[in-house]
């Protein structure tokens, strides 16, 4: 069974963390993963940095730019992650834009993911229709789940469609906004969470974008199966360093 499915079976509420590989320092990838697992995080999205991350907010953009400056590449990331499964058992998702994957060679990319033990991919600029036409077969062949996003503007019809195509989880974008921390959710978001909850989808939903603290984590997970923290975690990393990751995780789950 895919580790993602396994995790959603085992845990009621999933805490997932996003970080950009190669940031703050080029070789931080593995130490961060170890710290996160040790701190009890349920899942990790490893960001493959891209020069033009147009679906990301300023914090992730900057971490991505810094990672590239540090020398991060697709090949480099795969090299870092080689053998990672000797230490890391939680589900690992690679999150990146489509172009670097295409240039790496899509099949080659999938094969390397499989070798390493990557469980799934999130590719923000690969819409579901294109996925079905261009890459679904390939991803399946290498046992990779592809996760899709839904937003407050996604129509019910389309949500149902995405639900049908989805494996693993659905990434539920909290608001019509590129990623970036916010300190609380408003009524609009709560209503949206409720609306999705009431749809009783087959695929579990995980809320992302704007989760930054215990309060927002709480709010998100009361309507969904989990939450993904990105910007807030990256800012913490920058300010406090890899060693203090457990404190961050504790503050969320407190």
């Amino acid at each position, binding site marked *: 069974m895919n580790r993602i499915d396994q995790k959603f079976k085992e845990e009621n509420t999933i805490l997932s963390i996003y970080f950009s590989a190669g940031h703050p320092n080029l070789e931080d990838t593995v130490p961060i993963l170890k710290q996160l697992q040790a701190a009890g995080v349920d899942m990790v999205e490893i960001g493959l940095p891209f020069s033009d991350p*147009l*679906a990301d907010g300023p914090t992730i953009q900057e971490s991505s730019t810094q990672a590239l400056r540090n020398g991060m590449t*697709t090949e480099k990331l795969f090299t870092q992650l080689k053998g990672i499964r000797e230490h890391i058992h939680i589900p690992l998702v690679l999150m990146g834009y489509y172009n670097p*994957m*295409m*240039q790496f060679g899509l099949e080659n990319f999938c094969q390397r993911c499989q070798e390493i033990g990557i469980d799934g991919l999130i590719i923000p*600029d690969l*819409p579901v229709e294109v996925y079905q036409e261009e890459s679904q077969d390939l991803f399946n062949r290498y046992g990779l789940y592809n996760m899709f996003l839904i937003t407050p503007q996604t129509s019910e019809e389309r949500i149902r469609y995405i639900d049908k195509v989805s494996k693993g989880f659905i990434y539920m*974008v909290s608001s019509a906004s*590129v990623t970036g921390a916010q300190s609380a959710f408003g009524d609009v978001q709560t209503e949206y969470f409720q609306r999705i909850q009431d749809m009783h989808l087959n695929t579990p939903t995980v809320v992302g974008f704007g989760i930054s603290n215990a309060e927002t984590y709480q709010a998100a997970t009361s309507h969904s199966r989990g939450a993904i923290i990105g910007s807030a975690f990256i800012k913490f990393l920058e300010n406090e360093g890899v060693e203090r990751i457990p404190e961050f995780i504790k503050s969320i789950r407190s």
Partner: protein
Amino acid sequence: MNYNVNEKGYYGDFGGAYIPEMLYPNVEELRQNYLRISAEPSFKKEYDELLKNYVGRPTPLYFAKRLSEKYNTKIYLKREDLCHTGAHKVNNTIGQILMARRLGKHRIIAETGAGQHGVATATVCALMGMECIVYMGALDIKRQAPNVARMKMLGAEVRPAQSGSKTLKDATNEAIRDWINNPVDTHYIIGSVVGPHPYPDMVARFQSVISEETQWQLQELEGRNYPDYVIACVGGGSNAAGLYYHYLNDERVKIIAVEAAGKGINSGESAATSALGKEGIIHGSKTLLMQTADGQITEPYSISAGLDYPGVGPMHAHLFRTQRAEFISIPDQEAMDWGLTLSQMEGIIPAIETAHAFAVLDVRRFKPEEILVFNCSGRGDKDLDTYIDYFKL
């Protein structure tokens, strides 16, 4: 072969809509409505009237006598430089603002590099009394002060893009982010035949008025409605798409696309996408783009800000791959020299983008009876500082 877009939004291997889900509702709304709306009689009427009474269309098809004599061939200039705001860009912004109104949007965003598209967008927003935000690289804001001032005069807000290299590519990213953040009331007016489907097709259609006019103008002037060559510079490719449009499937007409070689194709400072690019995804479209082996998009370079883009529209990628069009790249120096030549031989100071196209005359031979139509895509007033510096005027 058919060189128009297919139903799925592809030109051969290129095109499509590689967009984040957050953009799906907007892009889909546009995709489902753009053909219908632009075919409505009331839309066509309003569009045509604005092109005529506001933009100043038809633009002349001008026979360049002295140039023709010198090169012993028949050279016509399609005078997009005479459009209101000084370039072809406004053909598209007029169309898109009308589209945006019919889609119920009342806030407009745009990206701009040299500022021409930004000015054209700010202009139509002023005309319609709509809010306008233009994203522009922080570096470009410094380099293109007069166009920034024009946008502000027109009431637009110019927002600096501080990310990346702070130029056009980053401004486009910022505009897309804005659209993601404002999915309901906002329309994004893209400035070239780039971006996700249906943008390349929609922009090409709005620009196709260029070849539509060229047809009847040539009929009047030469007794036949097609030339032997259509020649245009390609940044994103909108002025070229406009000039080629009605000739795309007419094999009697040869197509030449001119890219900016910058300091030379192999100098590391170039914007010659066809020569240096590989297939990939940029700004929502599968096309040719300049990138590292690792798939990171590289910063292009050209002395002309409007050609300083690392990709080309998917139509052009297709024209290149199928060899329907010949692609030629012209270095800064030749383009600048042509800026001067056109000024002194025909009294027309071209945009530096435009000047690139004319350099074809020095690298290809044409027969005396052959008819060449060059797209004179814009005027050089915006480039005066560059010309002054370069020629020490």
